């Protein structure tokens, strides 16, 4: 693993855990007791996007669905399991929050966010541009994970790279059909891009030890690990 890949691995892990921590904290502040849940429901009502008389059931659903979505996504992000799906779900939620906050600012309303319960750091009590920026930063983090995936330290990676992991340990790989050396251009190993969720596998055009080796490759030598 190169230094760049190490930095990338650590950064992705950091983003995952940071977002998971923030979402878990937000969910805890909304659901730590019935009064907190009632306060969050009142915050949702305060946005006046739903008619409280006709759509109270939707307010109730949103009151509990938002923190439960945060809890589930936080758990998935900590484990690195279904990272892209969990990040995408939270990205969608962030989109809704950003839209709702924008309408509040546009309407000039003076109400409390309730995003983190009664905890309002670093933004103040009243909804404003700070809340918009904060949610945009969280959305950017989610988008990064949607694009990048869970990284090397994740269950996603373990599930995907189970078989090639043997190859990284230096065991003999499965034989592959040997192309004619003269017809197949040799490709530098380092030219292949490294992707977090892409399994590490031997280059298919590379001659394998079990094949007859007209090009003079020593069959007793195991292939060298590519990136480790």
């Amino acid at each position, binding site marked *: 693993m190169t230094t760049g890949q190490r930095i990338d691995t650590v950064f992705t892990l950091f983003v995952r855990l940071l977002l998971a921590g923030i979402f878990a904290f937000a969910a805890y502040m909304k659901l730590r007791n019935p009064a907190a849940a009632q306060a969050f429901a009142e915050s949702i009502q305060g946005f006046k996007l739903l008619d409280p008389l006709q759509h109270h059931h939707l307010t109730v*659903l949103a009151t509990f669905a938002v923190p439960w979505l945060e809890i589930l996504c936080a758990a998935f992000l900590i484990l690195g399991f279904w990272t892209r799906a969990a990040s995408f779900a939270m990205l969608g939620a962030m989109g809704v929050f950003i839209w709702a906050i924008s309408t509040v600012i546009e309407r000039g309303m003076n109400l409390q966010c309730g995003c983190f319960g009664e905890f309002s750091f670093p933004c103040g009590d009243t909804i404003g541009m700070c809340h918009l920026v904060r949610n945009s930063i969280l959305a950017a983090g989610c988008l990064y994970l949607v694009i990048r995936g869970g990284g090397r330290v994740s269950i996603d990676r373990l599930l995907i790279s189970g078989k090639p992991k043997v190859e990284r340990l230096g065991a003999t790989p499965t034989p592959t059909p040997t192309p004619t050396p003269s017809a197949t251009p040799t490709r530098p190993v380092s030219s292949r891009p490294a992707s977090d969720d892409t399994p590490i596998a031997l280059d298919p055009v590379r001659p394998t030890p079990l094949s007859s080796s007209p090009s003079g490759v020593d069959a007793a030598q195991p292939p060298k690990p590519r990136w480790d």
Partner: protein
Amino acid sequence: MRFVGRVALILILATVAATVHSLYWPIYRDLPDRQARTQRAPVTDAAAQDGSPTPTGRSELPEHYISVARAYQFWEEGMPFVDARTAAERVVGTIDGAIHLETRNFIDGSATRLLEELDRAFPVIVFCGGGECDASENVAIRLSGWGFNEIYVMHEGYDAWKDAGYPTEAVGGG
């Protein structure tokens, strides 16, 4: 396709968990909703006899909403007033003798000491800034949970009280 399925499954799980959770923790729409679902009988004999508004039922304007003039009558009788505005909103002043209680005080438990000093047998009047302010209604819901049976919301808010020339005081005493 697998990605979409995973996202959908996460959303379904959250919805199911939310539905189950909502069965255990009721969410009240407003004060009459809370009183109706907890089957509290808030009508006092005195309120019924003098025709003053009571906190039951619904109409165009909820019946527990009272005007500034009616609130002033309660103030002259020495009934407690609860200011539900935030500290930032209170800098312009408050009703003379009003207690400051926000929603957050009920969540973190800091409301307990103040509420224990109030007599639940008397009416309590809650107010906020008026207009689209929901804070007084939200605090009224919680007061109902604390055993106060006769709760009124001065829906026109502090600004209307001040404009009417009724007694006010600077925040922090004085």
